[in-house]
């Protein structure tokens, strides 16, 4: 394995996070075993105290996973000189394709842990702990995702062989190549733009409708649209957004956006995207909580906040994606 400091930092952090989350998951199951909301025994009091620890541990795990996602991208980018043919993070990831699984797991973990923390917050705000069962049964899933993330990272880094010839984003993300990335890069810009903006428009419509009407069905539709918007936006980034940002019709890499020569545009762009998707998912996912009377008021307040944040984030994402298209000299549509 390449003994790179960034790799050591990632693996150390992941191991520690896994240990803490396994402890949290184990504690959660212990709590479920002995939990009795109507009891006023010392044990019940201790179990309630323990829920504070568990939410702190998962919160720390989430903060770490978000930071480690960025560190992961930067580390694989740092490693690219070791691989012949690699010019950026994409090249390193392709040197051992397990890396893509690690990245996907980190994304899944971000959403999973965020949703768990929101669920936990609702439970904390209610006097009768209505969600105890659900949240502690879901916690092992979060721990499992962290374990999977660690497994993929270890497989990825131990499987990296610096002398391996790899293909980089030029070959990977080019319409002449093969595989999902090449397919995405090969999507014709015109229809892809139409699909992207149509998807964004539908999402905006769903956000507006959910704001105006408290219907649970509308919220579920919003959640489905938000979930669908995520892969659509990623495809759009690879297919044409990155091209306009790089002002280069052949440069499809979704990671170079984080570099300083592109003014770190990747950070606000992906932040807006992830925020849009997360806040768009939550009203629909948490609609079933309406059946708990102790949560109705808190849920209604939170929903309004999510809808506003989702709307602002979506507008931010669309602005950042569209400005280079509108203002830059490159035009893909004429040449398409």
């Amino acid at each position, binding site marked *: 394995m390449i*003994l790179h400091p*960034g790799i050591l930092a990632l693996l150390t952090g992941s191991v*520690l996070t896994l240990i803490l989350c396994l402890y949290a998951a184990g504690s959660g199951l212990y709590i479920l075993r002995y939990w009795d909301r109507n009891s006023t025994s010392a044990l019940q009091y*201790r179990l309630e105290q323990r829920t504070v620890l568990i939410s*702190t541990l998962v919160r720390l795990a989430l903060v*770490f996973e978000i930071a480690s996602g960025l560190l992961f991208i930067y580390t694989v980018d740092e490693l690219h000189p070791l691989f012949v043919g690699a010019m950026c993070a994409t090249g390193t990831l392709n040197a051992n394709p397990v890396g893509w699984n690690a990245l996907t797991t980190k994304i899944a973990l971000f959403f999973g842990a965020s949703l768990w923390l929101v669920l936990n917050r609702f439970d904390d705000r209610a006097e009768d702990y209505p969600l105890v069962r659900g949240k502690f049964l879901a916690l092992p899933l979060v721990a499992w995702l962290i374990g999977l993330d660690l497994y993929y990272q270890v497989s990825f880094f131990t499987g990296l062989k610096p002398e391996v010839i790899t293909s980089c984003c030029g070959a990977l993300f080019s319409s002449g190549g093969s595989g999902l990335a090449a397919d995405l890069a090969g999507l014709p810009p015109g229809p892809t733009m139409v699909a992207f903006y149509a998807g964004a428009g539908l999402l905006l419509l769903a956000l507006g409708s959910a704001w105006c009407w408290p219907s649970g069905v509308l919220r579920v539709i919003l959640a489905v649209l938000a979930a669908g918007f995520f892969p659509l936006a990623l495809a759009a980034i690879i297919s044409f957004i990155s091209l306009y940002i790089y002002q280069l019709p052949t440069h499809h890499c979704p990671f170079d956006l984080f570099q300083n020569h592109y003014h770190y545009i990747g950070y606000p762009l992906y932040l807006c995207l992830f925020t849009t998707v997360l806040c768009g998912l939550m009203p629909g996912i948490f609609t079933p909580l309406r059946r708990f009377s102790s949560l109705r008021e808190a849920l209604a307040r939170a929903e309004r906040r999510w809808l506003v944040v989702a709307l602002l984030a979506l507008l931010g994402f669309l602005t950042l994606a569209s400005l280079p298209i509108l203002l830059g000299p490159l035009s893909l549509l004429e040449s398409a």
Partner: protein
Amino acid sequence: MLRHLKILEFAVAATLRHKGRNLAILVVYSLVITILASVLFLTRGLKEEAQRVLAGAPELTVQRLIAGRHDLIPTSYGSILASVPGVGRVTPRFWGYYYDSLTSCNFTLLGLSAGGGDHLELLAGRLPTGSGECALGSGVATARRTEIGDDLVLIDSHNLGVSFEVTGIFAAEAALLTNDLLLLPETDLRVFFNFPEGSATDFEVQVFNPQEVATVAAKIKQRLPDTRPITRSEILRTYDSVFSWRSGILLTVFASALLAFCILAWDKATGISAEEKREIGILKAVGWDTADVLELKVWEGLILSLTALLLGLIFAWVHVYWFDSTLLAPVLKGWSVLFPRLVVTPHVDLYQLFVITFLTVTPYVASTVIPSWRAASADPDSMMRS
């Protein structure tokens, strides 16, 4: 948000109040971070120096291998190399290693062809122009206590002493390239090492299009199967890999120090004093809940971590960039006895700072969060019953 900021303000005051208690942890923590950061700063500096230095190296170096070992290469191969499409200038090089028993050092002897040596700058004096002259790296000059105008005697392959007049000494700024270098006229070197007629040490090959280097190397290998073409990017990759590997080894070794520190942190966090227990009990009694007290403890831990991080980074900076990594350089630089004084360029790299933060703050927070929660779970009722 306001509540968090207020608790942070209280945490800062609490950390300052418990100076004595926190000082021991701070000292050890800062020391661990200093070592880790020094390793990373030095490695980065070495990698960058290697890149800078190798920027002047040829795109391709062609060596001959016999039975897997490096051997002298026939100069007749030069015309075959020149015939490969994409190849520009092909220059045979004559060089070798010399063990100086007087100083127990290894020198590199390089033959200078007539009119050559343009790429070697920073020279005091002049390059050797005639037989019996030489130019030295500053490390050689220091080891043999030789100045310009002095004679340097080396033992040749016939075990006879050969005297060379020193005409120039490479300045210290070029030390990484020239520290152990002795430049002789090519003919003198061939005689000194008793080079067989028609052979050289290797070839320096210029490739017009940098994108084509790998292709040219493959063609050379095809036409001359007993050769090993080495590209500049391969050398850079190898150095990168080696330095990363070495720093990784050091970091892995120091992981034990970090682990020991985390055990100390855990132990300290677990065994809170009666005074601290009382303090937490009072906070709980006057209206702080467990989450508030836990947040206070987490903030205290973060304040300590970030202070130690800052101190560690500053000390590492001073150690590496002011004191030339006195403690660490011998491990990372390599096997050569003649160490040049490596002056590493100061450089702030956010990625490195991120890595150091990850390697040091995360374990500390992880090892103190559960003991902090235990402390924060104190029963406020106990204040009434005490």
